[in-house]
């Protein structure tokens, strides 16, 4: 990449005063009467090679933050710097190289894979976009390698998504995200829909890949126990605002915000 070389200890991602407000229109002339403050004045760093956990309930704005980072939600204010480059002012064209460097893994492996595409086509699609010069044989080789890396068999590339279990489908989603060799991966409720034993396997896989490839994660989930397990730093969102930001250990041992305590209390104890 052509960025001016940043100091490697600087966070890969710096979010400052991020705002995503949706206008509410009303009255005869459909004028803007108010705003839904989906994300309101949120700042946090995403340390390189680490996992930042983002926890909150439905409607807290956690998913919107993830989407705003890759320009899938309209940013109304604030700044997002990725490796020192300001993203919010980039045009869609200028943003394209960042789409390769930032990838996303979605919650529902049933809905986020096209049922009419083979696994090979699913994983190859981002390669076709971001590496158009690569030959077919080379891409197929890469798809096979990616499948092996996420714990599936290279033969699986000829199958369709419905032929896999939920956990295997999430592995395909991870392989697709890894295809373009990203630095940063947003995991949006990536393990929430899975059985506990499958969840454990996928969480372990994500951690192995991080150690191996030096990936930086933003791990978005509503389950505090999983977030605390996988994250180095935890952010707690409530109604669009960041109510707490602390290391994973602190958040459990000495939560400061009332809302964090409420979330901790709601986690069933074994």
């Amino acid at each position: 990449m052509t960025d001016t070389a940043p100091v490697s200890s600087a966070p890969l991602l710096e979010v400052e005063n991020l705002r995503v407000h949706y206008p509410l229109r009303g009255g005869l002339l459909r004028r803007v009467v108010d705003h839904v403050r989906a994300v309101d004045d949120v700042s946090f760093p995403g340390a390189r090679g680490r996992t930042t956990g983002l926890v909150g309930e439905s409607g807290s704005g956690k998913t919107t933050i993830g989407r705003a980072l890759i320009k899938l939600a309209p940013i109304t204010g604030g700044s997002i710097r990725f490796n020192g480059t300001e993203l919010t002012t980039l045009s869609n064209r200028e943003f394209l190289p960042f789409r390769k460097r930032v990838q996303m893994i979605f919650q529902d492996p049933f809905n986020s894979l096209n049922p009419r595409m083979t696994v090979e086509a699913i994983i190859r699609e981002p390669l076709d976009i971001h590496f158009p010069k690569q030959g077919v044989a080379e891409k197929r080789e890469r798809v096979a390698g990616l499948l092996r890396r996420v714990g599936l068999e290279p033969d699986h590339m000829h199958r369709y998504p419905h032929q896999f279990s939920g956990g295997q489908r999430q592995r395909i989603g991870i392989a697709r995200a890894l295809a373009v060799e990203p630095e940063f991966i947003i995991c949006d409720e990536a393990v929430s829909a899975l059985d506990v034993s499958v969840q454990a396997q996928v969480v372990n896989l994500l951690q192995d890949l991080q150690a191996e490839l030096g990936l930086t994660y933003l791990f978005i989930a509503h389950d505090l126990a999983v977030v605390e397990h996988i994250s180095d730093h935890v952010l707690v969102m409530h109604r669009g605002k960041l109510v707490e930001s602390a290391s994973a250990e602190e958040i459990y041992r000495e939560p400061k915000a009332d809302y964090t305590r409420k979330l901790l209390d709601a986690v069933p104890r074994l």
Partner: protein
Amino acid sequence: MPLLSVEDLRISFHQRDQTVEAVKGVSFALEAGRTLAIVGESGSGKSVTALSLTRLLPEPPNCRVTGAIRYQGRDVLGLDRRSLQALRGKEIAYVFQEPSSSLNPVFTVGAQIAEAVRLHLPEIKDVEAHVIRALEQVGIADAARRHTSYPHELSGGMQQRVMIAMALACRPKILVADEPTTALDVTIQKQIIDLLRDLKTSTGMSVILITHNFGIVRGFADDVAVMYRGLIVESGPTEEILSRPKHPYTQALIACIPRLGARQRRLATIDHAAIARALETKI
């Protein structure tokens, strides 16, 4: 005599020349006023077991159910259609995982609860008042106004409360709750579990909780049955199973849940080959 007993239940599904045995000989009993949790993962057979209790499964030849299911001594598998209608909802009621797909979007929630009340409790004259009381019982504030709401006007947690109100409105003796909190946020999940616990105490009904999550079992269920690939691999009092699980599958299923503050390096996973070996040596 237990309120409900299941003996050597076997359920198989048939399609063209394919046969899938979902439940392979399951037995358990539920006493009045007790709570049984059936814990298992996807494909363990826990949900079809729950559905079979009032024969909510497809008819033969697509699905075959053998063994015995006895409710108050009556043979459920031998009941005719009319007796089944009287059993479903009136004696054994269900709450399912996804309230938004269980509720009919074009009727108000009050009308949907009233339908069940008119069918099963014809002696009740003031149905509206009964519906409002049912909604109040599940902690819906301003029930007198809320019963005219449509499902989409309510949050997921509220919708699940409505489903519980609907199930309880006909005063069933057994409530089968199939993953009632899986689709909900953690704080709402806690509220719903607390609500079910209160209702269980105040009404004296029995509850069968179907879940994949051991986390919500403690403090809620008296007994636990752990299902794996169509079999109950272990069952007993909740505290005993949770603190001293004997079967390797139960141990693995408890171990793989992330614990707050544990700071484990890695999560435990389930070694299915080892469990298959353990099952073989036992049979």
